[in-house]
């Protein structure tokens, strides 16, 4: 969940985990309902509520969520109890909440929204799949306003399990750690929601012009697809005023994005975001937020910038994200 802007102090750490803020849930969810919700469900529902409030949306034509791991806390809770109790004396709540489409389902329930409702669960493309679906709905004129979100949670068990495999970077400075190209990524979690509409209005942050998902690319393929995306919108690399890159500090994974930047965009200012939210399969939702914010406000916090130069006028931003090498995505955002 993100408050206005991306301030330097916007980091909430618990040990060396980048823990998502827990907002005042009472503002968004009735206590009786909140009591039964697992943490990621509350975070998702609250994020969506804030988003809809800002867009003044009461009943979107579609609700689409991307989450690679789903409701982990509830899954773990039911699983562990099931194992400990040898399949007896179990209660339904955590089982019910463990289904991946719980967040999308809860949002619909709270809004009384009978419209299109999908949940995508495909690893580093979970959020991108949701975004693509939303864009298709708008194109098909099946919807004129779509709520799209990406979220994943980091439970203690999840953290410990991946810790044993050496996934995490232990860091005292998140801002420095994403530059150091050593092994490991910052452990993170979060939720980000957007309203996508066909018409511009007072709340509009940016225009989402294009989205490409590139699976298991090499440098050449990634760069080719980026150029094709730009060409489709009559742009050359020089027309991109800033890059938002999903670098996470893990050298082996970051090299795709850094090579892309070096080769096609050597002079373009680069902003990062994973020092705020850490790495998780749907961190691209947080990145998209930063990219959209950048266009609307023509700036982000100093700490985000990775290169010495700063953009003067920002009309086009290319947002490039990678998750575990295999899942690379590129999104073009424009001022409108």
């Amino acid at each position, binding site marked *: 969940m993100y408050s206005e802007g991306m301030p330097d102090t916007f980091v909430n750490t618990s040990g060396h985990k980048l823990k998502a803020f827990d907002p005042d849930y009472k503002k968004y969810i009735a206590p009786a309902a909140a009591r039964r919700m697992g943490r990621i469900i509350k975070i998702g529902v609250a994020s969506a509520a804030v988003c809809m409030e800002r867009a003044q949306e009461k009943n979107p034509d579609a609700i689409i969520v991307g989450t690679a791991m789903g409701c982990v806390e509830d899954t773990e809770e039911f699983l562990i109890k099931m194992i400990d109790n040898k399949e007896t004396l179990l209660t339904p709540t955590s*089982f019910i909440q463990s289904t991946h489409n719980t967040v999308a389902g809860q949002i619909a329930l709270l809004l009384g929204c009978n419209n299109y409702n999908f949940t995508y669960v*495909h690893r580093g493309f979970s959020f991108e799949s949701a975004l693509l679906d939303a864009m298709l709905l708008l194109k098909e004129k099946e919807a004129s306003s779509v709520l799209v979100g990406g979220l994943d949670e980091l439970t203690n068990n999840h953290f410990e399990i991946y810790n044993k495999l050496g996934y995490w970077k232990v860091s005292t400075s998140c801002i420095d750690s994403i530059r150091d190209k050593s092994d490991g990524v910052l452990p993170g979690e979060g939720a980000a929601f957007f309203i996508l509409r066909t018409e511009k209005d007072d709340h509009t942050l940016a225009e989402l012009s294009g989205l490409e998902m590139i699976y298991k690319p090499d440098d050449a393929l990634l760069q080719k697809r980026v150029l094709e995306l730009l060409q489709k919108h009559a742009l050359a690399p020089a027309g991109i005023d800033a890059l938002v890159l999903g670098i996470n500090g893990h050298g082996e994974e970051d090299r795709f994005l850094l090579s892309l930047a070096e080769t096609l965009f050597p002079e373009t200012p680069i902003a990062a975001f994973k020092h705020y939210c850490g790495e998780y399969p749907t961190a691209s939702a947080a990145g998209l937020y930063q990219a959209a914010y950048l266009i609307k406000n023509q700036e982000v916090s100093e700490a985000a910038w990775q290169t010495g130069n700063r953009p003067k006028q920002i009309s086009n931003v290319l947002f490039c994200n990678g998750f575990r090498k295999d899942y690379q995505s590129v999104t073009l955002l424009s001022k409108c």
Partner: protein
Amino acid sequence: MTNRVLITGMGMISSIGMNVEECYASLLSRQSGTDKARILTTVHRDTYPVSEVKLTDDELSKQAGLSQDRPYTRTTLLGMIAAKEAFEHAGLHQLERLRTGMVSGTSVGGMGKTELNYLDYLQIENPELLSMYIDTHDCGDSTQTIADTLGCNDYVTTISTACSSAANAIMLGARLIKNGLLDRVLVGGVDSLTRFTLNGFNTLMILDKEHCKPFDGERCGLNLGEAAGFIVLESEAAAREGNRKIYGQLTGYANTNDAYHQTASSPEGNGAFLAMKKALEKAGIQPDDVDYINVHGTGTPNNDLSEGRAMERLFAGKIPPFSSTKSYTGHTLGAAGGIEAVISLLSINHQIIFPNLNFTNKMPELNCEPVTETDTSVAVKTVLSNSFGFGGNNTSLVFSAS
């Protein structure tokens, strides 16, 4: 060239057969796959019958043509078998320049392995075991593994919306073709039986201790099953280029949300009504035009009443012949929409309506009854297939003869 979405291949593995032909034979001979669990180890083995695929993981590996050198979840194994059948049926290895993708639905993912190993993951320092399986837990694993093996990688994604997952995957596949993003797409879903789901459904008290009785006045719950069902969708241009046999077309689809309760359906079946209505509108047909409904019909008191009421409302009392084939296959959750798509197409291609097994008493609240005998007297050109899931997720698909 029209914008039709054509079906050129099918694949299915379930408790009633290892492939489409075997499943069809079971449907004809009223052979249900529901029985005491033989593969799944559970304390509930003697209490709740399940609809298992009667092969161990090793046997499934051999059937799928996969080596034993890397870990595959049961979900991946089942999915691989059905996906391969559909892939080969549609000749997808040919015409490689056509953009070919995959969309799969699943609710369980790799939970089968996770529930066996979870405490080990947490307690014992065993990075080797951990790294072997940890990345097979998520829902996207089976889809990606299958797509990688078969080579349909132009766009791959996974949907998880509980019991409507596979139907939603089919719906998305059709839209990807209509929007010109893919020429061909393998769509459907897969779920394997796990203690997690069996115990989960048990806490909801909606499991039947006997064979389920969909749409029966004395019904008391569902039987959980496992399966994988995939069909191949192609654009008309791609199907022509490949000179493919056409098994039907997907003419209508709709997804709505009941927005009533996390696990129960609204008593009037509002979401179900809207899903069916919108799907028919998408297909440009009237309720009268539907020849057969393959209902969601899980056998739970809640679903069947809700769905029945929705049908009575939509069809204004003139409900077409309908049956729940979950009386054969059990409720296969994320795979249901996929195997029932195959069954709907079998219905169209063989001009046959399959019976709803275990039906004796009409539901007092409804005026309709399901078909109880195999019927070959009806011309079946248009089939409506329903899949309604937790989270109020309701999807209806319309299949038509080509």
